[in-house]
């Protein structure tokens, strides 16, 4: 497989429209395309089968179902979807919870572009084998 940045299917989950727009812009500048978006965990779960993403980028603090619970559900039910968790919270136990739930990476807000790009590039390398 020779997956490129623009081929990576990204599902972006954040209840903040502003935050999603910001991350989309940041990724677009680097040649990535956000192929699907959701403003809640429920909405994300509903769209996964249709969008079939390689990676889900999710915030933690969201109404009703948190990003940690969403990560657990996704990693338990979809083996081929990687999860990157983003949050303004960065206590050690929060990071450990995210990793414990199956996230491959944790990125603290405000997001540094290089961090998220490095994480996605590493995923592409792994997919390409």
């Amino acid at each position, binding site marked *: 497989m020779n997956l490129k940045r623009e081929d990576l299917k990204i599902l972006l989950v954040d*209840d*903040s*429209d*502003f*935050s999603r727009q*910001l991350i989309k812009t940041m990724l677009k500048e680097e040649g990535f395309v956000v192929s699907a978006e959701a403003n809640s965990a429920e909405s994300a779960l509903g769209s996964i089968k249709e969008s079939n993403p390689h990676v889900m980028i999710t915030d933690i*603090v*969201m*109404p009703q179902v948190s990003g940690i619970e969403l990560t657990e559900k996704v990693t338990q039910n979809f083996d081929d979807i990687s999860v990157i968790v983003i*949050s*303004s*919270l*960065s*206590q*050690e*136990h*929060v990071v450990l919870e995210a990793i414990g739930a199956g996230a491959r990476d944790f990125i*603290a*807000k*405000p997001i540094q572009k290089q961090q998220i790009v490095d994480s996605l590039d590493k995923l592409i390398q792994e997919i390409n084998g």
Partner: protein
Amino acid sequence: MMETLLHDNFGIIEEIQILSDVRLVGNRDLNPLSFTDYIKVQFEIKGNVKGFVFCYLDLEDKELTVAEKNYLLPLFLETMNILLGQQVSKSYNTTGDLRLSPPKIVSSKSPFTTNGKRNPVQKYSLELRTISFEVAIEYNLERLN
């Protein structure tokens, strides 16, 4: 009150940058604040310390179009979310496990003033390109033992 959280973190967060060349929040000396035209956003904190944090964005003397206000609100929400998230994270060693709720916009007609207020208030300025907005963050928190 969450004195440790407040005092340990005054000055830690000098600024937050979301957009590459825009300084969004800068820490300022705490002086009395008073305004009547503002956006108020509420966060709930749960854990070993519980209560509410209210963030006020002062719109007084600002001539903003509806489009500018619509741009400013989500920017303010996200900035406060990040600022409080960092405060909560950095206070973990002294306050233990804290959880931050999603932001909630609160409609209120009551004037805001720090004079005579019993809750601690931190003052910031939010700088968006050439415009600077006063921001007051009021901490109404209680430590549980």
